[in-house]
């Protein structure tokens, strides 16, 4: 299972990537494999306030709907519209084209509570 070294991880299987003051959020390779064929994605709305650990998006496989939690608190600045027509990007490229939303963090200290790649790898039992 791929766990890129340059990202931080939430225990609930989301990742973040920092690009200047913007945070990009997605789900991990492990998460997409567990969810299986993703057929629908409901990202948050641009401008929405999200809280760390609260539901920010929903993705659905054929079998089940799953909440995606925001790893950080802040404001959504952009969402990945490509997921609307091609939700399978979450399966095929979870760390790249399958990103879900971008945000500005209101409390960057929350980043410290996220897992480093080694700790996340240990959590998923690799």
């Amino acid at each position, binding site marked *: 299972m791929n766990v890129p070294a340059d990202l931080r991880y939430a225990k609930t299987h989301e990742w973040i990537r920092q690009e200047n003051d913007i945070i990009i959020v997605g789900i991990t390779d492990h998460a997409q494999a567990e969810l*299986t*064929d993703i*057929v*629908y994605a*409901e990202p948050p709305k641009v401008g929405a306030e999200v809280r760390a650990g609260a539901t920010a998006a*929903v993705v*659905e*496989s*054929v*079998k089940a*709907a799953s909440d995606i939690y925001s790893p950080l608190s802040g404001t959504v600045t952009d969402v990945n519209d490509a997921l*609307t027509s091609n939700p399978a990007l979450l399966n095929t490229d979870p760390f790249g084209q399958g990103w879900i939303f971008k945000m500005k963090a209101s409390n960057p200290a929350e980043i410290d509570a996220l897992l480093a790649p080694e700790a996340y790898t240990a959590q998923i039992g690799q």
Partner: protein
Amino acid sequence: MSDPALLKHTPLESAHVACGARMVEFGGWYMPVQYSGIMEEHRAVRSASGMFDISHMGEVIVSGPGALAWLESLLTNRVGKLAVTRGQYTLMLDERGGVIDDLIIYRTGELSYFLVINGACRDLDLEWMHGHLPSDGSVVLQDQGNDYAAIALQGPDAEKALRALYPACDIPKRNGIAPLIPSHVASDGIVPSLVARTGYTGEDGFELFVPVAHGIALWESLLAAGVKPCGLGSRDTLRLEMGYPLNGSDLSRDRTPLEAGLDRFVGLDDPEKVDFYGRKALEQQRSEGLPSRLTPLKLSVQGPPLRSHYPVLADGVAVGETCSGALSPSLGEGIAMAYLPEVCRIPGTQLEIEVRGRRYAASIATLPFYKKPSL
């Protein structure tokens, strides 16, 4: 998930694990929900062939001089229509007309019948049957649910696969049943191997019943023949595309087969069908009018996959909820079934399905949702 240790296990479990199955709890059983992926498995059954472990389903043999008369009183369809080797879909109701189970009954001999009942209600079904058995010994009831491993082989290439494995087998016609002439699958004493041309997918196909000890060998020979292992996930999307009801979701003790639109499997208008449990309740319901009808719905807009227990609204007013739902893999559209009152059918009624607080326009569809492309 429930603790697997508390669940019932199929004789094919090790074969599922070897095929990379994801195992889940289903109706008290530990069953494969998928192997390679629900979409892929669904497509394999629509375009080639797939196989499902249906060992969780129950097999009951009813025999004896009183078997026919007793079965007529127990089941809604007229059993007397069946010639030897033929099968039919039927329902077992309580006195209120509520559905205890839906099942297939095959006539396997002059005085013997083979019933295949749902896995989740095997114990309840048998309890009901035993509770209504005549006391004069004219009917013998044998529960063979633990003696059989069962595999549904489904899809347009199913017959080819079966012929290759059992060249000597006299392959039954649709809804028929025949001995599965063994090459390597033997019959064990009172547990004869059987093949029925029935299924739950809308495709041509077979249900194979073999003694438990031969289940894995059958699974592996089908696998070697190129048949794709398929789990409960695709079984559900395949059956829903056809509008086949699932007991526990679409059928229950609180609904009658008339409400479920299964009239043609209920012998109310058959002059030769005698009294059966639930008949009076059905006749009363028919004369009073149905409170609701199981209605196929389709999303009219792009939306999330439909699932059970989503509210259904007519002109903004809640009128029911979905009992089954899916994103149809064949159609790429949201499909669902819901018990809805008659007013919903008035042309111009705006139907909506609510998902996580958002409402999506829907319309009444015709069954089956999926129609096989004509060649």
